């Protein structure tokens, strides 16, 4: 891939184990991402997803390897890479406005207060929190807190947004609305996003590409699933798309069984620099006759979309 905006190059994370020896969380990860891509990473707990995200954010360092963003190896955190934390990480002594304004004034240090507030207000409006500017985080619901987190991240015009299970603490209804908004905002702004999730449906709804990670310790990237659904997605319709279940089943199969056995099964043939890119429904990995027939129909159907 020539035009790679973010490139994870051979990163690994190891730390000394309790009884001597070394525990490897993940090993030799290579992953290119393009500008404007929405990438989700899925894997079981303990495979080191959050560590990967923290390395991308510059909050953690890989034991080996580097990450290149926009032709520069990252060294520590940067305003170019905004993080949306799973736990919101709002400053509880600041109001909604104060939290967003803090980020804005950190990016543009010389700006005067009215200008900072004006920009903060714009993003508070964008996430639909108009009227709640003066509230403290403790007075907000979980969904509203995460909206503030999103407004804060967007307000600094990051090149990349890194999201660590941003919706996992929310109830289903709020989660749905927020997913819609994140999707809308990201599409409008052409944001490059790297997101961790445990929710397969969320990944399919939001992502262009879904990266599957095997179980830790010693986790590797198993494959990249290209989302075959059209870019225009409607929450209420997306699960009726004929390619929806092939993708979903593929990912769930991976999580249930292949995430455990992948490393063992592909020993010798696995190339961490060229991980398989699959497009469930389009190019079946195991082509049985019925499978091909069904998928053929599906493709015909998809073409009419």
């Amino acid at each position: 891939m020539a035009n790679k905006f973010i490139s994870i190059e051979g990163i690994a994370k190891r730390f000394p184990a309790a009884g001597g020896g070394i525990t490897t969380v993940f090993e030799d990860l290579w992953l290119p991402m393009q500008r404007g891509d929405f990438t989700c990473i899925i894997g079981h707990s303990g495979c080191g997803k959050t560590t990967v995200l923290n390395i991308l954010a510059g909050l953690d360092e890989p034991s080996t390897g580097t990450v290149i963003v926009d032709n520069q190896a990252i060294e520590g955190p940067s305003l170019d890479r905004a993080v949306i934390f799973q736990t919101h990480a709002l400053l509880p002594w600041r109001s909604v406005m104060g939290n967003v304004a803090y980020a804005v004034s950190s990016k543009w240090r010389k700006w005067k207060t009215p200008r900072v507030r004006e920009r903060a207000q714009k993003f508070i409006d964008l996430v639909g929190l108009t009227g709640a500017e003066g509230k403290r985080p403790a007075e907000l619901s979980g969904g509203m807190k995460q909206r503030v987190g999103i407004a804060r991240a967007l307000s600094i015009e990051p090149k990349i947004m890194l999201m660590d299970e941003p919706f996992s603490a929310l109830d289903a209804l709020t989660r749905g609305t927020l997913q819609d908004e994140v999707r809308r905002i990201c599409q409008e702004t052409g944001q490059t996003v790297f997101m961790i999730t445990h929710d397969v449906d969320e990944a399919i709804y939001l992502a262009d590409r879904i990266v599957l990670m095997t179980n830790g310790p010693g986790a590797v990237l198993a494959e990249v699933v290209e989302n075959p659904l059209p870019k225009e997605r409607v929450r209420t319709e997306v699960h009726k798309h004929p390619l929806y279940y092939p993708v979903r089943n593929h990912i769930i199969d991976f999580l249930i069984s292949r995430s455990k056995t992948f490393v063992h099964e592909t020993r010798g043939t696995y190339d961490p620099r060229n991980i398989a890119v699959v497009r469930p429904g389009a190019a079946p990995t195991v082509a049985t006759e019925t499978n091909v027939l069904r998928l053929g129909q599906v493709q015909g159907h998809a073409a009419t979309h």
Partner: protein
Amino acid sequence: MTRSLTLRAAVVSILIFATFMVAWHLATRGTGAVAQMDPEYAKLMGATATQGKSAMPGPLDVGGKLWEHLKRPFYDNGPNDKGLGIQLAFSIARVTGGYLLAVLFAIPIGFLIGMSPLMNKALDPFIQVLKPISPLAWMPLALYTIKDSSLSSIFVIFICSLWPMMINTAFGVASVRREWLNVAKTLEVGTFRRAFTIILPAAAPTILTGMRISIGIAWLVIVAAEMLVGGTGIGYFVWNEWNNLSIVNVINAILLIGVVGMLLDLILARLTRLVTFPE
């Protein structure tokens, strides 16, 4: 419900107070045996010996004297006879001086200890040894070096207020949530700005708790310090009145020490509430 609880608590408080007052009054009212003595000799003796009056003053004596003190708190009839208001003002001024000085030292050093694991380990042995020293043990050294009794008592207040503030500041700073620090990091906030915009507000409730403990200790210590150095202050007043055998005045002073201590604590409690944030 809360209102009725407050009301009921007030009733119980008043009952306890009334019971205590009545018991006190009854216990000190009685007359003991009166010894027969020469009238000339009796003139030299107190009411206890001549009239069999209780040596311990009753609540009415104490109340009357208190009223006198409250009516004229700021009179000054020379070194050994000053109004209670003046004496209290001296003590409060010393406590404030030593305490503020301690704030100036304890909070920056606490920040340093909290932010740097190296300094934490390096300073720990000193703090562990210095902390348990009774502040009054410093008094001779202070008198010898400073050569001023009033400044010495300020120094003693300084040294006793220092530790709780320093330790609480260090603890508060060290336990600022990682996620808030990460927010600052991802926003590329510099060390100085981070200290003032993230760490200080996050640690403020813990720091104020330390300051509240310190003011309590300082107020305990000032009484003892002033008993030692003499001259002025409520502590000196207590000791002076003991030498005068004026138990009435001693009881009054005890009462006022309690009230002022409560007010100081109340001020710090208010300040703590100001910086506390709900989570």
